[in-house]
């Protein structure tokens, strides 16, 4: 069983010092994560790393104990500060007592004291780093086609979710494809090499109402030096996608308009938190719908009369043929912004 322990009360550290540790761990986490995303800033971030922001605590048998001073504290003891606003530590406090009454000066070995067994109450799950309950989530993202080797459909998109509970949300998302569809060179090469055409389609937009469930969350230690939080979610919904065939077989007569079709979607994603309201997301989403395909019938072989052939080609009813269940699988990469930015924990950790 994992034990994520944030406690530090028993160590006699001042809140100010704990806050230093909290800030340090968060900043290290953010720095480390952003390191991978903003390579241009590698050297600057590397210089800023300050190591070893930790607290010490009890270790349960056989379990990892992660020292994370990152979670907010509640019910802290009074804070003792000096005039300059800095923290007054344990040893400085003892020094004051000894000055007033040397006989009452306690003899405490910090080394021995730190080795004593402690028995703090450890919760299986401590306060969750980023609560989602009753918060809005705004997700701008960019999507990439994962399963269409003929036409790629990259798109900017945006999602807005509202978390009813900490793990369930309702929301909507929107993708814009028009102008970004790319017909692969491979299509032309195939047509030229073997004289076989493949019906192609392009997208205009899609929109959906979604339900999100977050069944998993966790945290990672990066390079054994900083800790970041992440969660995994599943999402599904229903909406529409506007598509049309790309004319391949009879460009002389055929001209298609975009038409919306009902689309169901399902996906899985992960969120990596940089702080309590800002995260990166990566998601795999399948939009399934009935696609209308261009008619591939060989009209040259169908008619002996030119007039009959022309009439058939001009009839819009003959431009499309079958409808086929199509899966548009997208990888969506973006950011996630939670609103409001802050909240209060309902229960003590």
């Amino acid at each position, binding site marked *: 069983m994992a034990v994520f322990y944030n406690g530090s009360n028993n160590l006699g*550290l001042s809140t100010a010092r704990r806050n230093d540790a909290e800030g340090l761990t968060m900043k290290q986490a953010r720095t480390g994560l952003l390191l991978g995303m903003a390579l241009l800033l590698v050297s*600057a971030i590397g210089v800023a790393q300050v190591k*070893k922001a930790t607290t010490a605590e009890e270790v349960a048998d056989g379990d*990892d104990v992660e020292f994370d001073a990152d979670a907010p504290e509640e019910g802290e003891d009074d804070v003792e500060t000096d005039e300059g606003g800095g923290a007054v530590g344990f040893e400085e406090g003892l020094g004051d007592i000894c000055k007033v009454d040397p006989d009452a000066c306690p003899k405490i070995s910090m080394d021995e004291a730190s080795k004593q067994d402690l028995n703090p109450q450890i919760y299986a799950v401590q306060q969750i780093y980023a609560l989602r309950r009753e918060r809005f989530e705004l997700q701008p993202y960019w999507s990439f086609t994962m399963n269409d*080797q003929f036409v790629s459909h990259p798109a900017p998109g945006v999602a807005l979710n509202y978390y009813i509970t900490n793990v369930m949300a309702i929301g909507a998302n929107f993708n814009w494809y028009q102008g970004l569809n790319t017909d692969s060179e491979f299509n032309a090469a195939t047509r030229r090499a*073997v004289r076989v055409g493949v019906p192609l389609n392009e997208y205009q937009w899609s929109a959906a109402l979604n339900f999100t469930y977050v069944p998993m969350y966790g945290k990672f230690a990066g390079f054994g030096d900083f800790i970041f939080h992440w969660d995994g979610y599943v999402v599904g919904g229903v909406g529409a996608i506007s598509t049309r065939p790309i004319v391949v077989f009879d460009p002389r007569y055929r001209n298609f308009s975009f038409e919306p079709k009902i689309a169901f979607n399902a996906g899985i994603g992960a969120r990596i938190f940089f702080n309590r309201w800002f995260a990166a997301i990566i998601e795999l989403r399948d939009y399934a719908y009935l696609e209308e395909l261009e008619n591939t019938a060989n009209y040259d072989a169908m008619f002996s009369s030119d007039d009959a052939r022309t009439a058939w080609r001009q009839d819009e009813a003959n431009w499309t043929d079958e409808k086929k269940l199509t899966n548009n699988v997208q990888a969506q990469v973006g950011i996630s912004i939670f609103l409001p930015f802050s909240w209060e924990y309902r229960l003590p950790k």
Partner: protein
Amino acid sequence: MRRIFATGLLAVVGVLAMESTASAQEIQLTGPLAGAPAVRELRWHRNKRFEIAPAISFTLLDEYQRTIFAGARLQYHLTDWLGLGAWGAYGVVHLNTALTDEIDKVNKDRWDSSRDNDALTAVDRNASLLSVGYDFPQQLGKIQWVVAPQVTAVPFRGKLALFEKAFVDTDLYFFAGPAFIGVVEREDYSVADFGNPNKTVLENGKPVKSYPTASRVAIAPTFGAGLSFFPGSWSGIGLEYRALPFSWNNSGFDSQGGPPDENGPDSIVDEKDRQFRFNQMITISFSVFLPTDIKVSP
């Protein structure tokens, strides 16, 4: 549009990174915590252990044929975050895509005797004869086997809570190395070979045999990332993405080498017809770690 989005994202990231950099420089932690590790008593699932991981891989975004590989990953982990080893796999199942079936069907219809007198069909036959033989799936390029020595780095290590009930140790790893790939693809063939009795695939002017194929070993980079889940002290379940980019002629077509700019057919099927493909696959594995006893960090 893509450039604007990327620029905006980088700007936001840059601003946040610089802000954190400036703040982090102000922090100096002292006292008994100074020098303490970020995680105590971390279970070392990898450190100084051998990993044997039978794996099954599925290729992605294939134009003509999907491949399922059976293989294994053997590694020795020098530390909990660095391992050396190799991945090897053999293509045990090759599945035609719908496009392959369509090409095969159209081509066989095209050479049906009932269409011998059709002028348009004659044009199609002449234009496609060198690129597609009697049995199209037989001429397709195949990745038959792969052996890839690789270095694995495990920078991220943590835990995953499922449904707030089950907890499992998890890590995220990256790997890279050279790959030796056994490729089967069409052997060199030109229009002149139609007249060579030893190489022709024609009988009475019609294709009756598939074009011959040949094997070669390609060398390419391979890299990827994966997640490992450790349900116990000696076992792991892995999900991995691997890229294997290299040039090959996966269709067997004559599509390159001629005008314009060598981007058109040149009536010869040869190495010029190999095209760069960003080959990708997803791998699922089950790892066994030896020795089975797990060590724990201080």
